[in-house]
């Protein structure tokens, strides 16, 4: 039965609602609704003009149907008609319908805006409020365009009623949030700030939300609000519980306003004026004192309101991070809440303490609660509370308590909820690495981690562990005793074939990169334990390996199989010699956790910390140089085995190609305020000598793709900068320079790029290139941007090479050799009349001159060698072309 409806006479609506409620099935409901829709449609279309009351009733029914989750495609016009009714309730229902079902129909928007305009200028406060509520509820750009300049006037006008001011303030806030460019406070600024002094508490409560939002965007213009806010807060805090009449809530004076005032102050640094600051500190102390007083009511509303203010005050204390006394008091107060019987308070205390832990003043005080927090992790019944406890343990961890915390987290992992396991695993891995004092503890922890929660150990963790183990000789002996690592490291115990079978039994469960690693491990087995050779060759030979649809796996299988069958034991031993240490780099798992939790979750100090301590653990950076040298010697020896197991095969293990190791730009390597001068990265350069499009550079933050086209002596290059993170890059800028000799040879012009690159977004830049004369150097591209406060600086060689300005020339063999001979004086005569040779001819186009070039490539398949001869009309060109092209083979 319908409940008694108060003040309302829409009986038809009540009957319809009960009908719907009595429907036994979804089908019956839909049938009833369709019947009603047909009825309303016919009423709206009928000849008889509907009176306002009926219109209101039908519009209200349509609204009800929409709120049930059905689509409504008519009735908008009738609702708009209601807006211009003189009857308050009809107008009200019209506005409600518009607020809930905004339509982008431009004709309708014009009519709605007209009605709103009329109501705003009606000087009838109830109508004005309805109109303002509608704007605040819809908040569309069209409305901002129409009213953003009018509302500030209403807000500050002396004769505006309080209730209208309240609506105007929040209406403006909504418009500012959707269209900040249209809401200009300008001359009104100071009068808006002074609303903080308004006698009416409701006006202050509404206005302060607007002021807070505006202060965040233009702190300087609004900074006078600080002293006003402090004095207002001080008056509230010191008032007796009944002074504020209806603004007192369960014996707490103006809790909403107090919270908003404390929140506004968090937009600013501590007040510079000593008196204001003194007054504020007094307020904060009073709030902390009140927390110790006996409650004035047993009602939870009383304690919630009181504690809402307390938590907001603690947020402000943490924000200032400058009053050791207050910080420690805050910490003690939160410590009491950790054992409170209210789950909500325990949750909030754990959360709030997390931020306290990062302050140097309160870190030690937070640490004293370790036992309570560990207990919370073990005994809390609500997973979201346990999650907070885990977060806090992570935040309070340092060298002194790392072993205890890691052990507790590990034991918690055994029973942890699936939803938080992956994050827990990352945290344990990071803490273990960050605070490892001895390596056996580290390896022990990580292997335990893998045992307990193997499925949740992401690849990043695996790679990181392997990297660390390989870089430290002293850990290897320890890790070696574990089955898992033995084939990769040295393999001391256990029967090798058993090891292999165990390892291989898991092969089909692994991801592609892991399988690739396993295949490399297998070939190392063959080297170390010849008795496994036959078994492993069989594995490699089977179709699922040698014909694997993944190119990487297939190639490895084919190459390893061949290597194991043709190479002598000596060759095999050389090729499979122990990996050199990985170049020093930062933990990718920290990046992963950061990505999971958003950039705010891991503070900058934490990152700096891990950078320092991570460095120690990995045995110093000087090894990077060795690696690079080794890689270089690998690359320059064109033996077939270098190709097989060269640097590329180590790439999936998380090590960057060694040559780039020392130049690697990592998220954490430049976390400091000043970015070190970036070394030039020419890693991608050589790959583009013979191609025009592709990815030039990629790290964890940024991907740079290029697309280029050349005609005659002109070229155009499109650079695509992709932000791989979810956070925006600020102050993004790029410069292209032609150093030294290159300046008169090449002219590169670029258009500036947008300074902001949103997370996940890609921006494009066009370079126009003109070749003035032949050249050997490459232009440099420098990129600077801020990522979460850290300046990133990166310089790349742009792959603009002389051969890009080639124009192909057709010529017969006779012509070719005639010209070839004409140019012979410049080079040695070494013509080999072999039909397999390739010959090419072209003209390099520069602005100043044209340089004819002839090329001959003579492969010798047997010797696996080739000879490349270039003859050009200019010697410097043939020299440069020779350098460029010979590196391509």
């Amino acid at each position, binding site marked *: 039965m*319908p*409940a008694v*409806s*108060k003040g*309302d006479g*829409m*009986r*038809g609506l009540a009957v*319809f*609602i009960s009908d719907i409620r009595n429907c036994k099935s979804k089908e019956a409901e839909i049938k009833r609704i369709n019947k009603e829709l047909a*009825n309303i449609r016919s009423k709206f279309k009928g000849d008889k003009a509907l009176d306002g*009351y*009926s219109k209101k009733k039908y519009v*209200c029914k349509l609204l009800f149907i929409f*709120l049930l989750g059905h689509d409504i495609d008519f009735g908008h016009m009738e609702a708009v008609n209601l807006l211009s009714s003189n*009857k*308050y*309730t*009809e107008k*009200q229902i019209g506005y*409600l319908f518009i607020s*809930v079902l905004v339509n982008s129909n431009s004709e309708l928007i014009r009519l709605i805006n007209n009605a709103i305009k009329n109501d705003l200028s009606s000087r009838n406060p*109830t109508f004005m409020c309805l109109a303002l*509520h509608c704007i605040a*509820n819809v*908040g*569309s750009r069209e409305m901002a365009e129409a009213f953003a300049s009018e509302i500030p006037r209403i807000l500050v006008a002396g004769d505006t009623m309080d*209730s209208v001011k*309240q*609506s105007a303030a929040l209406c403006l*806030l*909504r418009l500012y949030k*959707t269209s900040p460019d249209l809401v200009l406070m300008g001359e009104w600024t100071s009068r808006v700030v002074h609303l903080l002094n308004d006698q009416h*508490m*409701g006006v202050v409560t*509404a206005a302060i*939300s607007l002021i807070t939002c505006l202060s965040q965007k233009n702190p300087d213009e609004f900074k006078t609000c600080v002293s006003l806010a402090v004095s207002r807060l001080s008056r509230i805090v010191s008032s007796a519980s009944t002074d504020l009449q*209806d*603004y007192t809530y369960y014996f707490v004076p103006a*809790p*909403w*306003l107090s*919270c908003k005032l404390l929140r506004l102050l*968090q937009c600013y640094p501590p007040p510079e004026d000593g008196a204001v600051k003194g007054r504020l500190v007094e307020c904060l102390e009073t709030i902390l004192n009140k927390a110790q007083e006996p409650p004035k009511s047993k009602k939870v*509303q009383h304690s*919630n*309101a009181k504690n*809402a203010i307390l*938590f907001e005050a603690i947020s402000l204390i943490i924000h200032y991070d400058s009053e050791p006394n207050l910080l420690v008091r805050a910490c003690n107060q939160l410590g009491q809440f950790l054992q409170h019987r209210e*789950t*909500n308070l*325990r*949750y*909030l205390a754990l959360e709030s303490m997390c931020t306290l832990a990062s302050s140097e003043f309160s870190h030690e005080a937070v640490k004293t609660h370790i036992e309570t927090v560990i207990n919370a992790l073990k005994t809390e*019944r*609500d997973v*979201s*509370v346990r*999650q907070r406890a885990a977060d806090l343990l992570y935040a309070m961890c340092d060298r002194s308590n790392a072993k205890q915390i890691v052990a507790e987290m590990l034991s918690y992992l055994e029973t942890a909820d699936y939803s938080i396991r992956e994050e827990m695993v990352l945290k344990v891995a990071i803490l273990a690495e960050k605070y490892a004092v001895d390596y056996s503890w580290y390896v022990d922890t990580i292997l335990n981690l893998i045992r307990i929660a193997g499925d949740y150990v992401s690849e990043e963790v695996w790679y990181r562990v392997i990297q660390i183990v390989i870089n430290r000789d002293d850990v290897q002996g320890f890790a070696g005793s574990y089955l898992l690592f033995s084939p990769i490291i040295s393999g001391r115990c256990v029967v090798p074939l058993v090891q292999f079978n165990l390892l291989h039994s898991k092969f089909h469960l692994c991801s592609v990169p892991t399988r690739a690693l396993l295949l490399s491990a297998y070939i190392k087995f063959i080297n170390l334990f010849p008795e496994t050779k036959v078994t492993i060759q069989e594995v490699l030979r089977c179709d699922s390996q040698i014909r694997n649809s993944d190119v990487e796996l297939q190639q490895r299988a084919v190459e390893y199989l061949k290597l194991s069958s043709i190479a002598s034991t000596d060759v095999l031993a050389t090729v499979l010699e122990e990996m050199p240490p990985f170049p020093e780099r930062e933990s990718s798992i920290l990046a992963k956790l950061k990505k999971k939790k*958003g950039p705010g979750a891991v503070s900058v100090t934490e990152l700096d910390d891990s950078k320092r301590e991570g460095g120690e653990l990995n045995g110093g950076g000087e090894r990077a140089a060795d690696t690079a040298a080794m890689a270089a010697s690998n690359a320059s020896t064109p033996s077939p085995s270098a190709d097989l197991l060269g640097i590329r095969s180590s790439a999936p293990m998380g090590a960057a190609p060694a040559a780039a190791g020392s130049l690697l730009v990592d998220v954490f390597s430049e976390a400091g305020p000043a970015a070190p001068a970036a070394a030039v990265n020419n890693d991608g350069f050589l790959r583009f000598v013979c191609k025009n499009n592709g990815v030039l550079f990629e790290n964890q933050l940024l991907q740079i793709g290029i697309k280029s086209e050349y005609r005659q002596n002109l070229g155009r290059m499109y650079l695509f900068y992709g932000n791989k993170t979810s956070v925006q890059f600020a102050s993004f800028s790029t410069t292209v320079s032609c150093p030294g000799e290159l300046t008169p040879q090449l002219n590169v012009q670029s258009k500036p790029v947008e300074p902001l690159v949103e997370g996940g977004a890609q921006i494009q830049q066009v370079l126009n290139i003109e070749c003035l004369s032949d050249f050997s150097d490459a232009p440099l591209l420098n990129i600077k941007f801020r990522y979460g406060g850290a300046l990133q600086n990166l310089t790349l060689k742009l792959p603009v090479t002389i051969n890009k300005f080639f124009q192909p020339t057709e010529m017969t063999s006779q012509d070719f050799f005639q010209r070839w001979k004409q140019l012979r004086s410049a080079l040695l005569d070494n013509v080999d009349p072999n039909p397999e040779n390739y010959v090419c001819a072209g003209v390099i186009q520069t602005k100043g001159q044209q340089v004819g070039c002839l090329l001959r490539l003579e492969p010798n398949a047997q010797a696996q060698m080739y000879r490349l001869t270039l003859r050009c009309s200019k010697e410097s060109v043939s020299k440069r072309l020779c350098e460029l092209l010979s590196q391509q083979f």
Partner: protein
Amino acid sequence: MQFMLLFSRQGKLRLQKWYVPLSDKEKKKITRELVQTVLARKPKMCSFLEWRDLKIVYKRYASLYFCCAIEGQDNELITLEIIHRYVELLDKYFGSVCELDVIFNFEKAYFILDEFLLGGEAQETSKKNVLKAIEQADLLQESEDWGSLQSDEIL
């Protein structure tokens, strides 16, 4: 505050208020997901939870769940009391409010909410002032409706 949802123990949505622009499809998806998440929680659990990049604050009153989504910086406890104050306003207006009142007088529930919260922020926290505004409107309505009651049809 980004939005407020009222739903029953059976998962039926009774009131929805969105303070950020979202498409109907997104609104439905969010509602479905949140109703499911909140209903799955046990009675003694804490009233706050992280959801996407928002914080959810919810409380159950009899058969109705009140659920608010706030942003990272917002205060959970004061939001909990926003819910309570809204319940008090409904209770005072309807006189021991129950789910049926919200169903049959949904438009009133929206009007009261608009007087209390606007654009997701507290506009007027005084119970007296909010109810005064609503009662004034009712007085207007009664005088207006005097003549039209008789002509009301069932369909």
